[in-house]
């Protein structure tokens, strides 16, 4: 629900005179209306029809290979949704993906925060180091996936290091065991996206006013206390948004899984996006995939809605 709090107008006490177009254009009402217009227009234009098609598809039983056009497909109403809920592979993929997201995002956040704090002070060549830290994000995911895939091959560099420098007797079959395979995927994801967290937290930290911090320091607070009671609360907005955005993205993890394990062995590392991809593009079950996507959308919406709550009441 929209907040009904009446706040003092920022526009002072000026009234736009309808006759003077320029006044209107500079006026606050127009300003407010026009600000969000481009985004609204773009989204409605781009998304409304495909969304309706997706909803429609989820209510019919249609596959391209049936030879009928999609608008001629027979309605099966909520049968697709029922199938999704009773699909074991679906639930396994969801749980698996949630675990991967949880671990990966937590790692990314912790490491990113540590790096951001570490980089607050100036030191020689900081710009260069920052560029290096940001680099993993900038490689196309195909290449990141390939690099990690090659690194963890049974006869790859990681196993080589393990055998020759760390005294392992034989290489570890990384992709053979679900937990290990998931770990390599998580590692690749953390490697690629920690710079994201780092950058957000770094610019967030940099935008914080210094006065409270300096005040606290003169009052004799320790670094940890300053961090915990002053920095973090001020950073809360940015942190929550960063976590939400990164989690949403991580939940859709597809590229790394596809390149590194193909979801294997079997379905041991299949993320939910990969399952939907298989359903839609390999099995050709586009309506089933649509129903699954809608269900996921609804569930994530609810969860995100709850997560976003703390942000609403901030000034």
């Amino acid at each position, binding site marked *: 629900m*929209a907040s009904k709090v009446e706040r003092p107008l920022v526009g002072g006490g000026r009234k736009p005179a309808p006759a003077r177009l320029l006044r209107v254009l500079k006026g606050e009402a127009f300003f407010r209306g026009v600000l969000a217009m481009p985004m609204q227009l773009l989204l409605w234009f781009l998304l409304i029809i*495909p969304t309706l098609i997706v909803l429609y598809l989820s209510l019919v039983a249609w596959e391209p290979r049936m030879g009928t056009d999609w608008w001629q497909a027979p309605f099966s109403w909520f049968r697709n949704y029922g199938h999704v809920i009773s699909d074991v592979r679906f639930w396994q993929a969801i749980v698996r993906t949630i675990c991967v997201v949880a671990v990966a995002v937590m790692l990314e956040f912790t490491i990113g925060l540590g790096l951001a704090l570490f980089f607050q002070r100036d030191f020689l060549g900081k710009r260069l180091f920052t560029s290096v830290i940001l680099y993993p994000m900038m490689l196309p995911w*195909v290449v990141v996936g390939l*690099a990690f895939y*090659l690194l963890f091959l049974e006869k790859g560099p990681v196993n080589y290091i393990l055998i020759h420098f760390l005294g392992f007797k034989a290489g570890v079959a990384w992709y053979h065991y679900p937990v290990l395979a998931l770990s390599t995927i998580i590692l690749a994801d953390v490697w690629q996206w920690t710079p994201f967290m780092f*950058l957000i937290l770094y610019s967030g930290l940099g*935008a914080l006013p210094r006065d409270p911090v300096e005040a606290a320091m003169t009052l004799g607070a320790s670094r940890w206390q300053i961090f915990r009671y002053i920095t973090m609360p001020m950073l809360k907005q940015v942190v929550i948004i960063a976590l939400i955005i990164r989690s949403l993205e991580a939940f859709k993890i597809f590229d790394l899984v596809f390149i590194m394990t193909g979801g294997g062995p079997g379905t041991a590392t299949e993320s939910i996006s990969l399952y939907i991809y298989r359903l839609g593009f390999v099995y050709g079950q586009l309506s089933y995939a649509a129903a699954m996507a809608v269900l996921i959308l609804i569930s994530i919406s609810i969860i995100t809605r709850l997560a976003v709550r703390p942000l609403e009441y901030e000034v």
Partner: protein
Amino acid sequence: MNEERSREGRSRGFLALIGQASRWLGALAICLVILLPVVWVLSISFKPPQEWLAYPPTIIPVEATGSNYIVLFQPGNPVGGVATMVSSAEPVTKALINSLFIAPIATAASVTIGFLAAYAVSRYRVGGTFMPFFTLTTRMFPPVAFAVPLLVYYRLLGLIDTRLGLILMYTGFTVAFSLWMMKGFIDGVPRHIEEAAVLDGASPWRVLFTITLPLVRGGLAATALFVFILNWTEFLFALVFTSREAITIPVQVSHYVGAVGRFYGPQAALGVVASLPVVVAGYLIQRHLVTGFTFGLVRE
């Protein structure tokens, strides 16, 4: 007292130096760890085919070759000099040009639209809580499920395999990202600064562009970088919606396969080449990253 102070000062200065040095070393260590996979990619990009999967693996190629890079721009040039491996019929220039055209425009559009909307949401609660949240759903939906319906829609519009089509799509799908990131940064700017400007007689537009915008420059830069990366490396939609004309770099990377599997060398080489524009962008924005209230804007 003064002596004490100065002795303290000197030891504090010395400590500060140690702090600087250890900080520098720490950063170096971190960077080395991060760089390992990057080094591997670079290494592969200079290796001939028989070394791509060789064991024991070597960081320095035994027979370093630049042909993986050459083949990107001059296909028909056997990879690694090996006659049995012939690479892509198209040079990467088309993909590079397309990506360089599509990604920056889509990014600029997305960030601008998102910034304006973020201001509206942050300051005026435009759309209440429904609208900004609704935009977030574009990031929640697995893109795969959206591909075919969107394809049908694009067919109606005649935008398949066009650059405009991709720009529109990338802008639309990243604008939620821009909105939410910018909202966070704008929320962090205290209102009283803006109100002070208004009391001085500035129009809302003036306030937006001359007061708020400079203060959130860092956030804007970070957002622009992320959106640029998202657009630059996006693969699925680029694959589904292009065939010959509007191919982008990620799709081009996927073309480097042949009779014996993936050509890791050219793929790595293209990955390195493709990351350069992003690196440049990243370096440039660093200037804007640290903003703050040390600019004397606020007069207490």
